[in-house]
């Protein structure tokens, strides 16, 4: 790839791909570093028992709490994958983990703020985005829990065999040892998952550069088609959830309906190319397929209902 790029680097479209690719990676990596570190903290400092004690006694209710967790723990979609990975290993129910995975990057104060600014403090848009994100995350989380709750998840790669020492440094019980293990686990996750982010970012950059946005603007007068087109655009662009509202708002005075703009803002943080690749490290193939289908279908259905009822 690098060789081809070297040859064609003066071609305008290759330049656009290159600049976009580097920009996505440079922006996403700090968030992912943070997410991986939080994952390391969970692994080393928080026991299974502690997590179990935080969850409501009735399993079904945990999904409602988890979907709102982003309000107190604001994470973007790049940061959340390593966190979810460690939470699942610590015994958090699949339904709650998926609810947090889907809602966390939408139902959080930073994203609510950026949506408000992009839409000039139009409270109805902010509420619709947040509530739709919450409702879809709860629904998909609950369904996934029912369908796949008993299934085993892919193991963490590179974990030492049982009984084998994890560390080569200070004893694991010492404070230095614990900090060391925290960052060793975090670095392991980051190194392991990061490649999917990079491959996803490259595909996203290529699609961004090769697919003119005006193609989507031209699908006019047909709300279901507009919604579908904006959902595909959200998946293709792989924008950060803090920034996607500004891009959605740029369609505000075009014939793209508000329901389609909302579809763009709700689906993007839940499902895009880089996330799909990163999900490989969380779930097995059938689960990824079901999760993607439910999320995509859920967003499409919710937006159609909103369009029909003129919300």
């Amino acid at each position, binding site marked *: *790839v*690098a060789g081809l*790029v070297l040859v064609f*680097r003066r071609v*305008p479209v290759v*330049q*656009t791909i*290159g600049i*976009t690719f*580097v*920009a996505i*990676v*440079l*922006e996403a990596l*700090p*968030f992912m*570093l*943070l997410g991986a*570190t939080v994952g390391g903290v969970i692994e080393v400092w928080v026991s299974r028992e502690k997590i179990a004690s935080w969850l409501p006694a009735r399993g079904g209710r945990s999904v409602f709490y988890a979907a709102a967790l982003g309000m107190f723990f604001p994470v973007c979609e790049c940061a959340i994958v390593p966190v979810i990975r460690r939470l699942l290993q610590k015994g958090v129910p699949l339904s709650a983990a998926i609810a947090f995975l889907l809602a966390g990057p939408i139902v959080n104060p930073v994203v609510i703020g950026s949506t408000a*600014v*992009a*839409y*000039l403090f139009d409270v109805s848009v902010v509420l619709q985005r947040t509530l739709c994100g919450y409702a879809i995350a709860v629904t998909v989380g609950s369904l996934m829990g029912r369908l796949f709750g008993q299934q085993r998840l892919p193991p963490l*790669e*590179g*974990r*030492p065999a049982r009984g084998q020492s*994890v560390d*080569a440094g200070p004893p694991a019980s010492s404070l230095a040892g614990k900090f*060391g293990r925290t*960052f*060793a686990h975090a*670095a*392991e996750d980051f*190194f*392991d998952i*990061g*490649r999917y982010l*990079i491959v996803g*970012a490259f595909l*996203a950059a290529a699609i*961004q*550069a*090769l*697919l*003119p*946005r*005006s193609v989507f*603007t031209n699908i006019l007068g047909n709300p279901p088609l507009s919604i579908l087109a904006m959902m595909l655009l959200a998946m293709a662009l792989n924008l*950060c959830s803090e*920034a*996607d509202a*500004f*891009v959605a*708002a*740029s*369609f*505000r*005075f*075009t014939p793209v309906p508000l329901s389609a703009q909302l579809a763009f803002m709700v689906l993007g943080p839940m499902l895009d190319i880089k996330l799909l690749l990163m999900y490989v490290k969380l779930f097995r193939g059938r689960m990824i397929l079901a999760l993607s289908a439910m999320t995509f279908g859920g967003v499409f259905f919710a937006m159609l209902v909103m369009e029909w009822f003129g919300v």
Partner: protein
Amino acid sequence: MVRRLKQRWQRRLASAAMWLPAVVFAVWFNVYYWLLEGGRYRAYLQPGLWPLLVLALGILAAFVAASLFWQAHTATKTGGIDAWLNTGVWLLPVVFLWLFFGQGLGTDAFTRKAPDLQNMAGPAFPTAERLPRIDTGGPSAEFMRLLKNPAHFDHRRLTIEGSVYRDPEGAAGRFLLFRFLVVCCAADAMPIGIPVFEAPLPMPANDDWVRVTGRVRIAAVKQRPTPEIIAERVEILPAPPPPQERYLYYGW
């Protein structure tokens, strides 16, 4: 003999692979440090994101130390081949950064990112009222002020700078003067443009960096005031070498 050599080579690769995560983290630490130095990161990222980069530096430093002293298990698990491939993927963006640093988004990106090429200045950009605060003076500031408050400039003379986009089927003497507005990073950069009319010959070409002096008139596009410039003078200038000087940034 060959088998023994192969085994020895595989052992060496596997043992070297143990240190690859530390190498990758060290490379990325240097990348972020280099980008922070002198504000180079603004070629790709919003200036307000610098604390994020400092945070990345801190965590990467901790990762380098952890990988060296506690070792990464990922590398040893699959005999090192996986780690070598992984390292290649990790270094790909660094190669791209090296190849593309200094280049900015141009007309190609403009035509692909614009939702509606016929309608770039007003209605397509409802956030114009909250466009960036401008710390520096000059033509950049003027570009933003014009979009923020077109009515204020009606019938006034002004000088602004930007890139040129010419519609292949557009009328003679007409082009769009555009800039990219970066919210978070260059990937979400939104094109904003101002139509320029009656440009004197010779007409600038696509991607030319020009300084336009002219008079503003306000047109109503979809019930919104949209600025247009009747050009008196169009100078073709060398584009500012660091791309960050060609971008405008959303004020956080």
